[in-house]
């Protein structure tokens, strides 16, 4: 194929491709809006709660503030007791 033919094909691909991408994602836009409208939000899922592999760690992190405080204070008491 000569270059000018290729250029025309490429231009056609550009138009067709962008149109297709927009139509596709546009239909998805419609889908999501329908979902938002018809699916009850009775059980709002707070993002970090369900993620499997992360959860284990996150949960630990969530406990941390208390535990860390507890352990810190215990360590301090222990040290005080020892340094006496």
């Amino acid at each position: 194929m000569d270059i000018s033919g290729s250029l025309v094909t490429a231009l056609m691909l550009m138009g067709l491709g962008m149109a297709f991408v927009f139509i596709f994602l546009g239909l998805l836009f419609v889908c999501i809006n329908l979902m938002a409208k018809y699916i009850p939000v009775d059980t709002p899922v707070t993002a970090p709660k369900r993620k499997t592999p992360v959860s284990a760690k996150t949960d630990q992190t969530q406990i941390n503030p208390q535990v860390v405080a507890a352990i810190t204070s215990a360590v301090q008491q222990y040290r005080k007791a020892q340094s006496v």
Partner: protein
Amino acid sequence: MNGLMTLWTDTGIANFQWPELIMMAVGGLLLYLAIVRKFEPLLLLPIGFGAILANIPNAGFNDEGGMLYYIYHIGIETGIFPLIIFMGVGALTDFGALIANPKTLFLGAAAQFGIFATLFGAIILNLVPGFEFSLADASAIAIIGGADGPTAIFLASKLAPDLLGAIAVAAYSYMALVPIIQPPIMRALTTPAEREIKMEQLRPVSQKEKIIFPLAVLFMTILFLPAATPLVGMFCLGNLMRESGVVDRLSSTAQNELINIVTIFLGLGVGSKLSADKFLNLETLGILGLGAIAFSIGTASGVLMAKAMGRFSKSPINPLIGAAGVSAVPMAARVANKVGLEANPHNFLLMHAMGPNVAGVLGSAVAAGVLLAIVG
């Protein structure tokens, strides 16, 4: 003394030729970028290492029976490795931000203009003597603008296997360079006032919506673009495993061990295509140049689309998040956040930018499907 001669005639020293030496230096450069500069190290480290191994004279890594030969033909030529990685990426992706603000889908769509403009550019480059990109070559090169490693590798392995090495290297390098490429373009196309725009908080998204979303995406791909179903299908499988909440151990394995194992071998296999005869030519320079153009055009398109949408939208849209539409997850979203913080230190755009960011992944998978259907 016979043995000594055998050893000597076998050594690298006695067999080195310039092209292979240069390719090993390229491999070394990739290692440097990965380790010292921390450029997408998960892929550039194995790719760089694979490039070095593939170019060792007399070692035969790429010959039938060699390790890289098996890796390439079993995992990459078949498309299996990029598809498994894409499943893992799906299992790692949270579409919550996109579902909460579906308008950002159009930002992810607009940014794909980088792909198609580059396709046109690659054909134009044929006017320069020495370049002879076929339409398939041009399409495989253009997908660099999708800023998605597995998509680029999958498409290149189908349309232009000879260019796979250069295309993968360009794709991952530019993804790592996103924090350098994007900000000037973003600043040039926006006013300080636009960059300061605060966006509304995202609504909570129910688990049901998150479960239905990948199924809807799959369904529409089946209806309109079967050629994209390998990529989109595996991505949606990973995301469905994540969101369904009933196969947590499979989802966790897909996100961790499985994707890690395949990443090592995918990297080595891509590196095996960085051989001198395929890489050390004018076309590679063309690919690198076109790749940079693709990223820039994609960024600009996303930002301009966001500006345009901001005019007509009820809720405010910060045009910076349009740049995240190229994907390069999650780097481009972080860049949008960072540039936003420069304008207003209290304006966190990260969650808002995640919407176009993941939309860009779908957008380039769709674009890849269009190219496969028409050109492939």
